[in-house]
């Protein structure tokens, strides 16, 4: 199983998110990426935490910063990629995989196919931030900035077009070690296609290793102590 790290990027600056509602500053992107290279994390996920409407120049600032980014670790990027023009100006970025959320939740087949065309199907990730509301699995739709029911069609669509699917446990995001593994039982998606994040700590990683999950991604905490990856692995 891969053990990776995630970083939130907004307006050219990195942030940490706690419980999906509070942000804390983190620092400069390249400085953070350099240390993750040195820790030799298995992969890095950079996400733009968009809630509702995304501002055009904020996206441009972030894309410009990404184009100058230097890293020797596999990189996935996502957050706010909603139009075909967004995909076109992604080509100059040093990223291996593209992470789409609203496109998959809207089941926007044309857009996803366009992404596959330029990146290849193995490079497409679906990102589903989920939480349990009176035991119905709901997913956060960032474009509409609201929680909607995670239908079977969305899951089918993700399994058909996405290489792997990132499941974010919204309520446990931040610094604890309580990712709700039982959330995954509610889903139709096979475990070897799932990347988990949000409340991923040492114990969750140990459990995830035995279930055949594809990858566990640690948020925030990977930068809280030296060489943390050795401790988590």
């Amino acid at each position, binding site marked *: 199983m891969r053990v990776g790290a995630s970083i939130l990027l*907004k*307006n050219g*600056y990195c*942030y*940490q998110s*706690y419980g999906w509602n*509070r*942000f*804390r*500053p*983190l*620092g*400069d992107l*390249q*400085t*953070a990426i*350099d*240390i993750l290279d*040195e820790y030799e994390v298995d992969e890095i996920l950079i996400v733009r935490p968009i809630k509702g409407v995304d*501002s055009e*120049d*904020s996206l441009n*600032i972030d894309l410009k910063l990404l184009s100058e980014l230097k890293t020797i670790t596999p990189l996935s990027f996502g957050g706010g990629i909603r139009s075909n023009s967004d995909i076109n100006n992604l080509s100059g970025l040093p990223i291996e995989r593209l992470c789409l959320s609203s496109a998959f939740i809207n089941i926007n087949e044309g857009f996803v196919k366009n992404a596959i065309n330029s990146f290849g199907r193995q490079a497409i990730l679906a990102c589903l931030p989920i939480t349990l509301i009176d035991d119905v699995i709901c997913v956060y739709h960032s474009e509409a900035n609201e929680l909607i029911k995670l239908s079977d069609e969305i899951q089918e669509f993700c399994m058909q077009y996405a290489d792997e699917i990132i499941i974010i446990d919204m309520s446990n995001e931040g*610094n604890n070690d309580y990712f709700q593994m039982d959330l995954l039982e509610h889903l139709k998606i096979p475990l070897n296609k799932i990347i988990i994040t949000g409340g991923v700590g040492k114990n969750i990683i140990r459990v995830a290793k035995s279930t055949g999950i594809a990858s566990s991604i640690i948020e*925030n*905490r990977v*930068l*809280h*102590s*030296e*060489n943390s990856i*050795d401790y988590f692995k």
Partner: protein
Amino acid sequence: MTTLNNPQFCSNCLYDNKHPFGLSFQEGVCSGCFTHSEKDTINWGERESLLVDLISQTRKNKKSHYDCVVPVQGDAEDYYVVSKVLALNLNPLIVCVNDYYMNNIGWHNLHNLITHFDLDSLVYNPEINTYKEMVRTTLRKLDHILWPSIALKSSFPVHIAKERNIPLVVWGQNQAIEQVGKFSHTDSVEMSKWSRKEHDLFGYDVDKVIGSGAQIDIRNLNYYRYPNIKNLGHSKVKGIYLSNYFRWDPLYQNKKSVVQGFVPQHNSASFDIYERAGSSVYYEFHDLLKLQRVGYRKVRDQLSREVRHGRLDRQSALELENHYNKSEVDISGFFNWLGVTKSGVEWFVSKRLPKVKHLIGSSENKICQLPADISGLLTNSDEPTREFVLFGKGVSL
């Protein structure tokens, strides 16, 4: 979320989104104030027992007779850190890096510290020509004269801990948490190469600073670089911040150091006579460069801190900031130390210090009214008699 470029001010303290450590807002209140409010909800007894467990872990199979390294520069906070370390019955080695900026008060406070607490100590004096060349380079390229000493102070103690097989480095406050609440106290953030580069050296490491142009013998930069983190892993060196385990209130706790022989230093740029007492530049030329670099002087950090501790309301904090921002600064001492000619200084001031030129003069003190809660915590303080003492005796019989 921070909007792009128009400034956004915190409704509680004096910070805005231009803070070099970054700042995020929630209903108008900045992340620094939010994290500070944790100090009143956290069960500090639990935090301390967590610390005690951590310490017993590090002492398990240690090879040195020292339990920890305590990096100091002889200011008031070090007195508090050392007394806490001894209360935790750790056997510390005091490590200090001489930044050559210390005045006679600085040497007194450093040597009184090791004498009063009766501790083994190691003072590293970096090769002075390389050091001064680094100061010239960072002054020229980053508007910063403390960068080289911060690079040394945040790396040398870790080198010594690794090389002398000492498993723990104990730091005082984590500035990223105390100023902008970058992490929660309960995250128990530890010392790391990343944190040093991001916060202490704001994104620059030695190679980026010297580029290809600096006239420096690279071989002399060994202790300006952080040790290899793989080796640190092998020799299990860990660094912790006491401000994650004790309710950190600098003004309150620094006052106690006076009883232990610490001498506060008066300065005209701030009301705080404890923090960084003993330096010939901190509240003079460094404060000016900080204003030009980040747009505010050290006093804003201290005023915001006092607002958060409830000893000051925001309005009077703003007034006090206005008052202290006007205090003039004498920079001649620094340039004599650096060996710069009079015309050299004039060139540099006119070309490189446009925004702060008006504040250059002789530092005289203008009395101003402080709220009782604050003045109650201040004792009387000395004026330095000798500046830029390379090595001082400090205490006498």
